């Protein structure tokens, strides 16, 4: 009995440890995004935005200061303005005894606004949403059509074509990145939305998933519809797709996650600010604002937030679809 409890205890210990390792980077990201830059510069690595600030009392009011020099009988300070961003007075001489220390917790939500406005993140968001939307619609269309043919029709070279599809899609992206760049330059697609959307609107995993689903639909249903005078396309549109909604949702979620998170491709294929997507924008922001850690963490937070929120709402479906597609694919 005792051994069983101990067993359970160790199991939960390891599970909680692993869960902590998985989420701590995210918690740290959010907590850092709420700190003031001066606190980060002073080496605050903890999870709470704790600030230690010196102040003097002047006419009964607190005035926050930055100590420049402190000796036994003389101290020189800079006095902060109310937001503690800039100094309103510099090199003021005060008595060292009058300097006191304040420790408090303050969440700097303003970092989010500042990061959002520092580079056109609003534009990047719109671009990403537009690209992801088009990719999702495109994938749903091409995959439903192709999967329907592969699952329900007989034609010459069906297997050969299917295996060609699979083998092409198994080739990792970096392998054909360079020739793709050359190709897109030749057709003048570099730096256009076409380059971000069109190459990704066919997806073999989606075709595969939908083909499996379409195969499970009983033949009687097709026969009945044909007798009623439905054409093949009508059967697909009116019968097959409506009863395949869960799998279509899975397909859409995959396409959305893939498109939203894709980085290397848009990094290579675009360089103008106008069509820059979120991930590339974030990476430029990281390379430019190396000094402003708080803003960078704020930007990272709002970049990952939409998908994490989506995930939390639809987690059961997302997890099971990742697993099933993996095992079948």
């Amino acid at each position: 009995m005792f051994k069983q409890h101990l067993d359970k205890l160790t199991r939960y210990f390891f599970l909680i440890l692993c869960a902590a390792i998985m989420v701590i980077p995210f918690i740290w990201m959010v907590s850092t995004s709420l700190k003031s830059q001066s606190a980060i510069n002073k080496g605050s690595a903890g999870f709470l935005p704790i600030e230690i600030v010196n102040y003097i009392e002047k006419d009964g009011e607190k005035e926050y200061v930055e100590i420049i020099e402190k000796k036994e009988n003389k101290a020189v300070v800079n006095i902060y303005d109310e937001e503690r961003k800039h100094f309103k007075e510099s090199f003021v001489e005060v008595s060292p005894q009058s300097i006191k220390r304040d420790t408090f917790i303050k969440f700097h939500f303003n970092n989010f606004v500042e990061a959002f406005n520092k580079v056109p993140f609003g534009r990047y968001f719109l671009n990403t949403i537009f690209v992801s939307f088009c990719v999702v619609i495109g994938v749903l269309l091409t995959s439903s059509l192709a999967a329907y043919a592969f699952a329900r029709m007989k034609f010459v070279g069906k297997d050969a074509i299917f295996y060609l599809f699979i083998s092409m899609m198994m080739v990792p992206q970096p392998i054909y990145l360079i020739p793709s760049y050359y190709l897109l330059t030749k057709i003048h697609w570099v730096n256009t939305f076409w380059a971000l959307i069109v190459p990704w609107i066919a997806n073999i995993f989606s075709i595969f998933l939908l083909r499996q689903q379409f195969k499970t639909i009983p033949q009687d249903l097709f026969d009945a519809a044909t007798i009623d005078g439905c054409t093949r396309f009508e059967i697909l549109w009116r019968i097959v797709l409506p009863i395949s909604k869960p799998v279509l949702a899975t397909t859409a979620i995959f396409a959305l996650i893939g498109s939203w998170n894709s980085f290397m491709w848009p990094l290579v294929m675009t360089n103008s600010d106008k069509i820059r997507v979120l991930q590339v924008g974030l990476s430029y922001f990281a390379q430019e604002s190396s000094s402003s850690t708080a803003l960078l963490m704020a930007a990272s937070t709002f970049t990952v937030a939409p998908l994490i929120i989506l995930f939390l709402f639809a987690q059961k479906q997302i997890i099971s679809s990742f697993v099933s597609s993996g095992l079948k694919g």
Partner: protein
Amino acid sequence: MNEKSKFTPFLYILPAALIVIIFRLVPITLSFLLSFFKWTIRGPEKFIAFQNYVKLFNDPQFWQSLLNTVFLVIFVVPSTLIFSLFFANLLNKTKALSGFFRTTFFVPTVTSLVAISIVWKLIFAQKSGLMNHFLSLFGINGLGWLSESRGIFDLLFGAVGINFKEWLHVLAGGTGIPFNTLYIILGGPSLALFAIIIVTVWRSLGYNTIVYLAGLQSIPDIYYEAAEIDGASKFKQFFKITVPLISPTTYYVLLMTTIVTFRVFSQVYLMTGPPVGGPLGTTKVIVYYIFETGLGEAMDLSYASTIALVLFFIILSVTLLQRKLEKKVHY
């Protein structure tokens, strides 16, 4: 069947087929062509046969990036396999909170590598990073996670007071292999590359744990019950029942993790440098080398394609090797 219905199936697969042909088949074929030509962004200039391949063979940067990538694969793949099977096994016996654990494990999978890399770069920061803050609790101070070019084995031996380099000099004298070659290989991945390894394992752990969990749940309880009656220990049950029966899942995890690890790019691009791939090129992985060669200042499209093709054949042979291995151990 009439004439019309003979061709309609092709209409259905046409949209997908067009994309596959134009944006997969053509570029992949092009990369073969590119590798045999002097080819710039304007077009082909000169047929140079195997010159790019000869250049590649004698390119120390290629060999270093290959070695870095191999280090990455050797460290990431087994750790991912072992840890994810371990956690899946724990999760499989757990009822309370199992949904909560599954969700938290899975969050990194849906998160962009860009944001993840940026966050981990700060976690590994020497002064204000969380990692060193944490390690300082155990008396380990000021590790230069992303700036340390020495290999982890060199550092480990150094920490326990063994002069690793001296031993290598002896070994080099005895075998005739140059000291530098020995040091680069036996020193192991640099601490900076090790940081990349940690991030990569962290990212792939959640997904593979869930995949393993699905595999474990498909093993019928009756096997364990029978083993229990026969008096087999939990330990024995794990190695005699779980491991063999889970081998198809293991094969899948092995294959996917290997492919994903060979193509690591974002972590290196965003966490290391400047210059990217530093310190001293110890984190320059092969995909970043392709990127740098083909799209950096040199814009050497044909040489970059050559490297990409070689990578392709490496991945292909590793995949086929694993497939052979799988057939041998499959029950």
